[in-house]
């Protein structure tokens, strides 16, 4: 390919990205306008005269919801890794009876529609007092993350050299010690990937959030945006500012951990 051709390809690529990401640009543009500017026709295409009032409103009305989602997402990451890492290791390493069937089950459960879980868990959560609670949200969101994390960690863990583990075992380490002191450190990248995606899934969850919270005590940010939008007298600059703030984890992931992103999409095989 000649140099000109490559440059043309790059230019075409840039145009494609600009067109495709136009909605994201629009979100940022609107978030920086004043409420009056949003009612102008034609609209203000570029934020030459930005105001931060949208962000002020976003933080004032949605700040606590962002915090709620942060707690839920971090809790989900912790719970997910605690449950998934040992299981993934066992499914990758031990020749236990039924492990292949278990892997199949993990693949299949990802296909259970979330609405079914919401529907059938609601009465249970209601009885156990798990509605409007962090614990309830963390458990519910973990249904999105545990199968995914098990599959992706298992892929990585089956690549850990068996000699490493055996060496630790010969030195007298028990299975769990070998796992903790040898396997986990080696799989650091995989754990980061699984953790990042678990965070993102829990952060983005809307179905469980809207099903299992009433807004009386805790309200995740997705539900916050939903109710914000549903409000008739909505300030769209405030909504878009909230949307921008809610996009920070995704943008962070894309900018800092891009190589893990593709691994996350393809490695788990499935994203619900």
């Amino acid at each position, binding site marked *: 390919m000649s140099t000109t051709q490559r440059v043309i390809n790059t230019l075409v690529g840039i145009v494609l990205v600009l067109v*495709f990401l136009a909605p*994201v640009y629009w979100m940022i543009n609107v978030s920086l306008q004043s409420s009056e500017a949003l009612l102008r026709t034609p609209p203000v295409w570029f934020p030459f005269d930005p105001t931060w009032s949208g962000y002020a409103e976003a933080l004032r009305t949605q700040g606590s919801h962002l915090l709620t989602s942060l707690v839920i997402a971090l809790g989900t990451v912790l719970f997910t890794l605690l*449950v998934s890492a*040992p*299981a993934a290791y066992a499914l990758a390493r031990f020749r236990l009876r039924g492990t292949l069937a278990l892997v199949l089950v993990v693949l299949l459960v990802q296909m259970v529609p979330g609405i079914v879980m919401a529907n059938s868990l609601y009465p249970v959560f209601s009885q156990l007092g798990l509605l409007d609670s962090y614990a309830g949200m963390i458990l519910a969101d973990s249904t999105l993350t545990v199968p995914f994390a098990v599959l992706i960690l298992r892929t990585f863990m089956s690549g850990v050299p068996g000699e490493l583990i055996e060496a630790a075992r010969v030195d007298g380490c028990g299975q769990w010690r070998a796992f903790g002191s040898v396997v986990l450190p080696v799989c650091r990248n995989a754990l980061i990937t699984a953790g990042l995606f678990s965070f993102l899934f829990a952060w983005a969850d809307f*179905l469980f959030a809207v099903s299992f919270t009433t807004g009386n005590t805790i309200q995740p940010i997705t539900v916050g945006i939903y109710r914000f939008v549903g409000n008739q007298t909505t300030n769209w600059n405030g909504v878009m500012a909230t*949307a921008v703030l809610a996009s920070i984890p995704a943008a962070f992931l894309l900018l800092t951990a891009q190589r893990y992103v593709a691994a996350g999409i393809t490695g788990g095989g499935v994203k619900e």
Partner: protein
Amino acid sequence: MTTKPEPVNGTAPVRRVRSGTSGGRQRLVQWTFVLPMVVFLLLFFCYPVLRNLTMSFQEWTVASFYEGGSPFVGLDNYVELVTDPIFGTAVLNTVLFTVGSLAPQFAIGLGLAVFFQRRFPLSGALRGLLLLPWLLPLVVSGAVFRWIYDEGFGALNQLLLGLHLISDPVPWLSSTRYALLSAIIANVWVGVPFNLVILHSGLQAVPGSLYEAAALDGAGPWQRFRHITLPLLRPVIAIVLMLGLIYTLKVFDVIMILTGGGPANASETLTTWSFALSFEEFDFGQGAAVGNILIVIALVFALFYLRSIRDTFRSRGGRG
């Protein structure tokens, strides 16, 4: 996939010495690794699916939650559903939404994947940026599109009016004619990156020498695409479409935030209807029944999916 046997060369004797003394105990310890996950799967997948099945045969009202009591009513819920005029609408909308989302998602994703297969400066970075819509919370994307679609002040109508493509603002979300289409367009945007990533990784596996050989034989770009890319990509295409289908069936967030299934059920799918029945009308029995229909559909395609990944695994193994 990842079912290859673990490499045990040289390590097996060591294991035998250890397990010779305490084989049973060893196995027990090994099971403790899987136990938490198994318990979690039982409580949060098996139980809900079974419970959903029994709920669909019960009558639930608001009172069921306060006074208890949800009597067994046999197939009543299902009969009521099927005779409900919304049922036909929801089924049709689900099919339209799924097919209408999948086809453009796949076509655009494949086009982009083929384009980004070329080597040029920034290729990787630009492709990475295209993943953003997939990473954003769906509620965020939904909210953005909702404002873009706004009849009076939305960018879409302003743009189309400015270009004189339309003479009057289009009520994208408030008209029964456009609501489903609007939701589909937003959902296509969300789904393209997933198709792009999987198809791109599939393309990477196609040996470049094949293209060179075909080019030497005088095959043009379209012929190369048609006779090399497509056939070799077939297993990946099957996977992407199957997963896309299962994933699109349960789309909830985008529709909820854009239209809430309305106006007048114009964009109601089985998923949003199930939610409305349970969480708005508190008829969890009927909501569960719709959910079970969704499970059956998802399961059928899940089996197709499992079969196709088994085939890819085999063909990969066959090729060495």
